[in-house]
């Protein structure tokens, strides 16, 4: 690894870095040094690193242009280990830390010598915007091959290939006033609100709060401006009602003043979050802020000028030059040419000369500028060339000169002879664009201000902007605006705040700026050297002109055709220039061309941070029953049913499964399910049915309500009895089913499917609250209160009798009765409901006692062969009986009649119950509707595939007319055969017919249409 320990561009004093604290870092394999307080960008500049990346399309060498979120070029791949990789980190926003390791995202074999740049140089011409759309079309079959090569050039950084060692979290915040941006306006606003006692959050995206005050040339209260900022921050930090969030970017403004703030908590400390007391804190945190009012003090972005070869390393925006010098003590070059359209840009030249380096010239597009800063520059002896601009930069890997000429801004042409000035740095300033991104996230369209030469935000109710963010650019004005807008915001909340006294600041006269976006060149734009507008996507002024020539006149078309503004900087530097160039080409004004819409995020945020803690084990709740531990301890495999984990089957460990098997091998699923099925049919099994939804219904009108919401009749259900019910939507399609028991005259217990529980509960409330509020009835979920265990099989009565005081006599406690009593000493309700077709007792026990009852059953169950079974066996057993599973045998397009369940439809009920009307619609009356039937495979060894499609003519050519599909299919150890349930067109009148199931493996199975009831059609077994 090479090393470079000098920092040739570092000043000996000044700036906010800590020279006593040296940090070493590696960039593209070379070790460098920087200081605490540096960003990666300032450290690279201090080491004289010119080329930090290669451009995306043309592979041109690129250097650092800006100092903040607007930086388009300096994107790096961060991370020394695979798991810690972070792609596309903006070097201007990455604090330096010891051992930082970074690489350019583009450039092969390296950024200094990039093989692709040759293609860029030669081929650039052949890659106008939209060139993909015009080529690679012939022959059609080749596109996938072309694309393979095109994709090789895709992307900037790369994704890590290992799991993230870090985690992230969310913090839900609430405040009266959220102030975004801690520059002059933001600090004043924060202070004003804070002193009023309001709950205030003040956030700022930079490593340090203070914004432009940190590199200002101006004095506040006769001291450097940053001193004032430090005092204010200190005061704010001591107030309980204020939350200060540095390193925190407001990345999205959502409805009703919901703002997401991304706080980089540890990214300045290392590539992964360092341990604190053995605990790894969240690497970064999303604050989900619900604010009463929001004040945007987000400042402005400087616009670069668009001139030839303005992408060569050494071209920077003027403000960035000042920031590097004054804040980081780094001068990014030796000889400066400044090209500006406004007074403010002059600061760069003054700072440069203060740093002891040479200013070759200030090239001002205006004639006779006369502001105070201009005067100061003159007084310092800087050459000022007025009415002129830099036409193009010279140099390849670093600026070597600037071609400068007089220009006629209005006529968009060069007005004089060009002169080449030798220099290594060109700073440009084309004016300032208020940072309106967050305001436009709300959907409010910004409006163009001709005086400010920029878009100013439109603000929805409750949003305020102050300072540069709304075009109030001067320091004194910005401070005053901050306090005034804070007062306004608080007044809107009905709170009062007093404006606070401004610090003393010298007034400064600024001469008017001029509008210049693209600098004219002697050659027409299409032939001139490349004038970059969007550096990240290699969009040039020529590309924009070409797009407009081709008829792309809407700014949205221009953007999409050229890809302008689609980079990770979202066009912060280039968009306004691009719009202005499009406007020029179309002969329109900028507001006529329109604005672009900014979308969240303001700057990119990791998926991990947005996901927060809802990852891995906490991705989504797992719901457990009261018996879960027992299931785990007995080796259950689990099935996901909604959020529940239900035992699927209980594979047993047996000493010897096959002759070649090793001891301790577990049963296969098929073996386990067959064993469980036979246990229920021949002895006794037990199922944890606690996940079924249970709703306690009370009220004098409970019975009436049930009659309206279920398809079948409830008027005569006696106390002590239970009934199966079907629930439809008003379109007549089945939505849920279950049994409901009459606990007392005005008291019912409804059960629902596991997955349908929450939906049914809301459904009942919906009808009650919005349609039938006159009914006196209440619904309370008791799903979690009761654990439910089903004891079923021929031996169920004998087993239960051992531990209950309930009279289980078949006449005293009949099928579809329920009784109250004790089981294992615990008060319970027992329901004689059967979903297996066998004698069955469903025991409801208060969940805290469930484990005791369950274990007691097993203590007594051994001699009866008590076998736990899971959902798979439950499915086989119920299917053998033709019992449906809502959501498996139905899909939202099935009526009770389609299921052959006319017996559960109360055609003559007096009230027009939910779903009734739809049953007489023309489509519902069709005779060829898909109807539920049984299928018996001709070959009993065959278990049809669930989801297999059914045809009548297996020899029909594709496309084959399909008449239905298999909804449930299993092997029945009782029948020793496969069997299935299916829906078949007109199935109820096709009994005995043969149908065919052509499968993916080429086989076609034949099956006979039979009744849905395969076992015990008379229901004798459950009535014993």
């Amino acid at each position, binding site marked *: 690894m090479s090393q470079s320990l000098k920092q040739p561009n570092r000043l000996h004093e000044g700036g906010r870095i800590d020279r006593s604290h040296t940090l070493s870092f590696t960039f593209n394999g070379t070790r460098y040094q920087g200081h605490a307080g540096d960003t990666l960008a300032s450290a690279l500049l201090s080491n004289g690193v010119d080329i930090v990346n290669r451009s995306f399309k043309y592979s041109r060498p690129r250097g650092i242009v800006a100092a903040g979120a607007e930086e388009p070029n300096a994107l790096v791949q961060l991370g020394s280990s695979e798991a810690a990789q972070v792609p596309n980190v903006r070097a201007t926003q990455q604090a330096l830390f010891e051992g930082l390791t970074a690489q350019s995202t583009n450039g092969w074999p390296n950024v200094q010598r990039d093989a692709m740049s040759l293609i860029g140089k030669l081929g650039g011409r052949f890659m106008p915007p939209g060139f993909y759309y015009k080529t690679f079309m012939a022959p059609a079959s080749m596109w996938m091959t072309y694309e393979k090569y095109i994709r090789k050039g895709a992307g900037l950084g790369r994704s890590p290939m290992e799991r993230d060692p870090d985690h992230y979290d969310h913090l839900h915040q609430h405040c009266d006033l959220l102030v975004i941006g801690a520059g002059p306006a933001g600090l004043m606003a924060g202070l004003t609100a804070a002193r009023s006692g309001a709950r205030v959050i003040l956030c700022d995206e930079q490593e340090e709060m203070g914004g432009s005050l940190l590199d200002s040339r101006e004095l506040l209260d006769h001291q450097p401006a940053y001193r004032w900022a430090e005092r204010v921050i200190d005061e704010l930090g001591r107030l309980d009602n204020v939350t200060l969030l540095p390193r925190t970017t407001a990345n999205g403004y*959502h*409805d*009703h*003043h*919901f703002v997401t703030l991304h706080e980089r908590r540890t990214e300045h400390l290392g590539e992964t979050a360092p341990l604190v007391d053995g605990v790894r804190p969240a690497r970064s945190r999303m604050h989900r802020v*619900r604010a009463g009012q929001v004040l945007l003090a987000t400042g402005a972005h400087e616009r670069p000028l668009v001139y030839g070869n303005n992408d060569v390393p050494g071209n920077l925006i003027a403000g960035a030059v000042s920031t590097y010098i004054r804040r980081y003590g780094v001068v990014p070059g030796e000889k400066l040419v400044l090209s500006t359209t406004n007074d403010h840009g002059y600061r760069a030249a003054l700072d440069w000369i203060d740093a002891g380096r040479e200013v070759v010239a200030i090239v001002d597009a205006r004639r006779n500028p006369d502001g105070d800063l201009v005067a100061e520059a003159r007084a310092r002896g800087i050459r000022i060339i007025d009415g002129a601009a830099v036409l193009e930069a010279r140099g390849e890997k670093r600026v070597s000169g600037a071609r400068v000429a007089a220009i006629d801004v209005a006529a968009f042409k060069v007005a004089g002879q060009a002169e080449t000035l030798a220099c290594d740095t060109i700073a440009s300033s084309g004016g300032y664009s208020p940072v309106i991104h967050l305001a436009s996230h709300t*959907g409010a369209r910004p409006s163009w201000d001709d005086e400010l030469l920029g878009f100013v935000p439109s603000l*929805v*109710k409750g949003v305020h902007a102050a300072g540069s963010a709304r075009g109030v650019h001067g320091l004194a004005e910005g401070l005053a605006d901050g306090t005034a807008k804070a007062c306004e915001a608080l007044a809107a909340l009905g709170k009062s705040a007093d404006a606070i006294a401004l610090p003393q600041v010298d007034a400064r006269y600024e001469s008017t700026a001029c509008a210049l976006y693209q600098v004219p060149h002697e050659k027409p734009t299409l032939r001139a050297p490349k004038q970059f507008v969007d550096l990240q996507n290699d969009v040039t002024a020529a590309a924009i002109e070409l797009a407009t020539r081709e008829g792309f006149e809407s700014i949205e078309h221009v953007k999409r055709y050229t890809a302008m503004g689609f980079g990770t900087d979202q066009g912060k530097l280039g968009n306004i220039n691009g719009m202005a160039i499009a406007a020029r080409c179309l002969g329109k004004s900028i507001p006529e061309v329109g604005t672009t819409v900014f979308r969240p995020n303001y700057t990119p945020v990791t998926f991990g941070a947005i996901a927060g803690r809802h990852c891995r084990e906490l991705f989504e709740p797992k719901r457990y029953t009261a018996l879960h531990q027992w299931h785990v301890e007995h080796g259950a495999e689990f099935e996901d049913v909604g959020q529940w984990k239900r035992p699927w089957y209980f594979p047993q460990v047996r000493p010897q499964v096959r002759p070649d098997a090793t001891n301790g091998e577990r049963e296969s699923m098929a073996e386990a399910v067959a064993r469980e099925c036979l246990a229920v049919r021949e002895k006794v099994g037990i199922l944890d049915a606690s996940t079924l939804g249970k709703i306690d219904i009370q009220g004098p009108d409970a019975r009436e309500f049930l009659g309206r919401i279920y398809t079948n009749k409830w008027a005569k259900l006696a106390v002590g009895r239970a009934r199966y019910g079907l629930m439809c*939507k*008003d*379109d007549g*399609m089945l939505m849920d089913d279950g049994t409901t028991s009459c606990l007392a005259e005005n008291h019912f217990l409804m059960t629902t499917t596991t997955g349908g529980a929450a939906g049914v509960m*809301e459904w009942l*409330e*919906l*009808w009650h*609250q*919005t*349609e*039938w*509020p*006159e009914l006196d009835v209440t619904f309370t979920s008791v799903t979690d209160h009761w654990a439910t265990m089903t004891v079923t099989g021929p031996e169920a009565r004998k087993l239960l009798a051992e531990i209950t005081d309930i009279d289980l006599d078949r006449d005293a406690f009949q099928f579809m009765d329920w009784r109250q009593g004790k089981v294992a000493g615990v008060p319970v309700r027992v329901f004689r409901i059967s979903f297996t077709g066998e004698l069955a007792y469903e025991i409801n026990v208060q969940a805290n006692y469930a484990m005791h009852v369950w274990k007691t059953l097993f203590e007594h169950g051994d001699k009866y062969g008590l076998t736990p079974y899971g959902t798979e066996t439950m499915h086989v057993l119920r299917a053998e009986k033709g019992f449906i599973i809502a959501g498996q045998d139905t899909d939202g397009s099935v009526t009770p009649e389609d299921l052959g369940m006319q017996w559960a439809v109360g055609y003559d009920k007096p009230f*027009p119950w*939910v779903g*009734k*009307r*739809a049953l*007489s*619609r*023309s489509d519902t009356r069709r005779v060829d509707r898909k109807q539920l039937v049984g299928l018996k495979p001709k070959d009993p060894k065959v278990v049809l595939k669930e989801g297999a499609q059914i045809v009548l003519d297996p020899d029909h050519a594709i496309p084959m007319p399909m008449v239905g599909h298999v909804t449930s299919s299993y092997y029945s150890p009782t029948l020793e055969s496969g069997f299935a349930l299916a829906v078949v067109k007109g199935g109820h009148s096709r009994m005995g017919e043969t149908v065919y199931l052509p499968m993916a493996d080429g086989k076609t199975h034949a099956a006979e249409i039979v009744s849905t009831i395969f076992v015990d059609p008379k229901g004798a077994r459950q009535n014993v």
Partner: protein
Amino acid sequence: MFHIYCPYCEEHREEEEFHPKGQAHIARPEDPEACSDEQWGDYLFFRDNPRGIHHELWVHAVGCRKFFNITRNTVSYEILETYKMGEAPRFTAEHPEGRPAETVAAERTAAGADKVERQQGAKA
């Protein structure tokens, strides 16, 4: 993300606590059997879907579990009011600036305030 005033809880809550349930004030026909297939289909499926002021049924699902109505602008997403079941909106497409509360109350009395209005969202 919306900030919704629940008229029953009498405070603003986050949208995550609520479920939208479609257009408000859609009453089930009194006598479904008397409806033609067309009328029944209209009741089940056909909706206003306006661009602008819209009345919606919501439920405070994670909260008091009460259904209530929201008048909301479907373009700006501004919530103009929330009101309990059986109440009439102040803000409508015809009166985007809002009618005086007294007018609305007077209308309700005239219509028979004791009769709770039936109004419901999609049931299909």
